[in-house]
């Protein structure tokens, strides 16, 4: 039983080959499908050209796959051991962009490291999941009932969320807060405490409002009353709905989206790429993609539930929750159900940071599948021994 009390317990010494053998090919294929859809849409967004988006996206996806497999094959105990270091590193980077970051689109989100542009808030999405998974791995069901035990995870969530909000990046802040909260729920937090936490979040809204830039306030106000300013802040969402709705059941055909190709649709290669897909492939295309995403989430949930360690389960579900939030917020946004926030459509929107983040995350899901039977002890000192 003692072995179950530390991280190093259980089955050890899987060979690399054995791990490769354990890679879940179904998940890999499920991940590749939306990416292929993405390449096609980026090809269309460029008016039928691999340049400037589709070609680069393929290279990024290739690089992302390599990273995904590397993440998958690393021993799961490496991830639990380094969980807080990763979080600390991501947090440091967040503070770093706050100090030296480049302002893009009026928001400081990027950091130049040599030729690489880094978006620390993306790394933080994964880092937070890993850190929370580790924290709740070590906490027993009884411990969770104690209030002081909840203070560290709340800080883990709120500190980066506040920093990201300051950038300001409303979408990522919301995503961090929501995914953190859902993980607290999975960890067994009492419902009423979760209620208090939610009330606290609601109470924080007026404070958060102060952090927002004018354009963000305008987006939210526009969402509440979209007809107030059809040519201003409401223009994008209105044009998106027009594009979406005009697609009808079967769509206007590949490369045939008038709204997209005549530039009525904003940001068609990034945040609004789903609208373009819906315009060109209609309800059939949009429902198909939705089902594909649902399959990934369902399969990811099954993998998480089959995992033996709490760390693995929390980690897997954390990634799936993050993925769900990406999908839901982006789709709801382009259909005018939530305010416009800068959340890309996972695996499809053009952009390197989000792609790498997601593939890194799916690497972790593959990892917990490979290491599903590994028993991990509860205490760190045992690990060191």
């Amino acid at each position, binding site marked *: *039983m003692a072995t*179950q009390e530390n991280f190093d317990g259980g089955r050890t010494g899987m060979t690399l080959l054995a791990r490769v053998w354990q890679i879940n090919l179904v998940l890999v294929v499920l991940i590749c499908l939306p990416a292929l859809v993405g390449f096609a849409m980026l090809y269309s967004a460029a008016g039928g050209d691999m340049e400037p988006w589709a070609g680069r996206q393929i290279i990024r996806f290739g690089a992302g796959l390599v990273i995904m497999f590397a993440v998958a094959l690393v021993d799961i105990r490496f991830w639990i051991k380094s969980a807080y270091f990763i979080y600390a590193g991501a947090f440091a980077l967040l503070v770093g962009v706050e100090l030296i970051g480049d302002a893009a689109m009026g928001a400081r989100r990027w950091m130049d490291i040599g030729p690489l542009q880094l978006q620390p808030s993306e790394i933080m999405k994964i880092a937070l999941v890993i850190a929370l998974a580790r924290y709740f791995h070590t906490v*027993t*069901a*009884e411990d969770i009932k104690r209030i002081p035990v909840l203070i560290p995870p709340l800080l883990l969530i709120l500190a980066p969320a506040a920093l990201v909000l300051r950038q300001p990046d409303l979408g990522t802040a919301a995503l961090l807060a929501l995914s953190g909260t*859902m993980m607290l*729920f*999975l*960890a*067994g937090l009492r419902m009423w405490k979760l209620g208090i936490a939610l009330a606290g979040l609601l109470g924080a809204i007026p404070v958060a409002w102060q952090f927002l830039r004018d354009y963000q306030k305008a987006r939210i106000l526009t969402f509440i009353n979209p007809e107030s300013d059809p040519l201003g802040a409401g223009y994008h969402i209105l*044009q998106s*709905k*027009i*594009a*979406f*709705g*005009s*697609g*009808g*059941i079967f769509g206007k055909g590949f490369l045939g989206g*008038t*709204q997209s190709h*005549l*530039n*009525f649709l904003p940001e068609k290669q990034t945040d609004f790429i789903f609208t373009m897909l*819906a315009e060109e492939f*209609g*309800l059939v295309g*949009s*429902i198909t993609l*939705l089902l594909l*995403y*649902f399959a990934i*989430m*369902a399969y990811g*949930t099954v993998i*998480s*539930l089959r995992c033996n360690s*709490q760390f693995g*389960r*929390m980690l897997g*579900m954390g990634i799936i*929750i993050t993925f*769900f939030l990406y*999908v*839901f917020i982006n*789709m*709801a946004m382009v*259909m005018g*159900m939530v305010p416009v926030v800068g959340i890309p459509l996972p695996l499809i929107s053009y952009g390197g940071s989000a792609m790498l983040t997601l593939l890194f995350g799916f690497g972790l899901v593959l990892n917990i599948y490979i290491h599903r039977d590994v028993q991990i002890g509860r205490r760190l000192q045992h690990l060191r021994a």
Partner: protein
Amino acid sequence: MQGETSRTKMFTRRTLLLGGVQSLLLAGLAGRMYQLQVLESDRYKTLADDNRINMQLLPPQRGRIFDRFGQPLAVNQLNYRLVIVPEQAGDLERSLDALSNLLPIEARDRERILREARRKRKFVPITVRENLTWEEVSRIEVNAPELPGTMIDVGQTRHYLAGEEAAHIIGYVGAVSEKELEGDPVLALPGFRIGKNGAEKNFEMALRGKAGSRQVEVNAFGRIIRELRRDEGQPGDDHFLAIDMGLQEYANARIRDESAAAVVIDVHSGELLAMASAPSFNPNSFTTGISHTEWNALLANDRFPLTNKAISGQYSPGSTFKMIVALAGLGGGVMNPTHEVICPGFTVLGNRRFHCWKRGGHGRMNMNKALTQSCDVYFYEVAKRVGVDGMAVMARRFGFGEKLGIELPSERKGLVPTRDWKLAVHGVPWQKGETLIIGIGQGFLLTTPLQLAVMTARIANGGIAVLPKLVRETRRAGQRLADAREPFPSMGLPPAHLAIVQKGMRDVTNSPRGTAYRARIEEPGMAMAGKTGSVQVKRITKAERERGIRKNKDRPWKDRDHALFVGYAPIDAPRYAISIIVEHGGGGSTTAAPIGRDILREVQRRDPARRGPEENIVLDSAVAV
């Protein structure tokens, strides 16, 4: 271990719960997709098309106007415009500097260009200068490589080749005013012109044609991506006037220095062969926008150059009305042509004297002599016997007091007074003396030169109720349009009565005693018949009469008599009728009759009515403008 198991169980439970919530949320997304793409799809499809499709009107080419032989009078000229596209020009200020080395750009224009460039989208061309000459165009084309973003654009402007010669007939086009904007959307196009006067106004709808349109696909910035559909529309109809431009120019030259009007009409067809009104104006000034000074000068001119005196000028017909009085007398049976009236130089009614123009009197007058010598006393007597209403009936049969329906705006109907009219309008009963004055074509009576020409034509053609006609023919896309005009009816006048009047008119110009004998046409076969008229514009007081009436030329211009002449030729087979009025011209026989003679001689020489216009209209050469 117990704890571990329960923790796993709770995790599973909560995961399934969360998964359920997530599935519900995704189902919500699917529902929204259904709502947008199925339920509301039609609305969004319409909105998407509204977004991307722009309708543009293509202005139709305005119908041209030719004379009867196909000589172009009003055409569309290519208007070369220099435009600049800011997007391609780069530095607009520097481009304008470079351009001003080639052709002068006024500071005012420069400001306008820069202002438009700030307001409009970068790819919308801005007009720098209009109406460039060929020299300017070629100067720019040669230097085109150094002038990025500049282009020569071709539009159309109306050009009046006849200029002043037919300004009153053709009129002119001008910018559409706010009031006129209703109806055709093509009117709202920038730079669109519509007829403001003359035939241009009267035939506006036929000349305008139908606007074409094109549907273009535009992107979010309004830039045209491609053309989806194009409808060329229908160019306006070409109009061929009855006017013989050569004759028109001759008539103009003959009255140029006067304030006058001359009308030449075909007595059978009613075709207007010439209709001159002097002074005239240059209609081309109006197409590009007339200057303030020029406009004010036109308005201030006391000879009213903008008025078409032939149809808008209303004058007492004077002695040219005596044919109507004679026919009224004959028709009423109150005057026998052989009955004689003695003219002592005046007649007395009550205690008032009515003078003849000839102070010593004409002596014994019968109808023929009275017409030939224009004896006023004789016609006082006829008028007395017929009465004002009897004269009015005959006058109306000849087209007086009504619009004749000439295809021009601003035709006036003149005035044929009756007893009822005076009571209704002036509130006082008719005076007998006024009847006498009507007998010599003065008093309340008002006629237009066109009406006088039509009257003369109806006498000359043997009593056919001919009506004037300005347009001979219209063609749409080169095809002649059907003309459904019915033949003119007979007026039902006894030929014997007309013969008496015709003989009188013939003797006016051909009998040595006739008032216009000196203005006769001596060329064989061209002899004309006519009637002179002189109309007092100022009442002669008794004191003046006793002092001796001053000769016309001794009076100020404004006080001189109007000079009139009507006539037709040739006598044996009348074809052309004419009316002349020279405002303040002095005497009809001295001023108007010679003009009438010259024009009647010229029209017989040219003989436009008999020259087949069909072979003369060579459109191709006429079009090459």
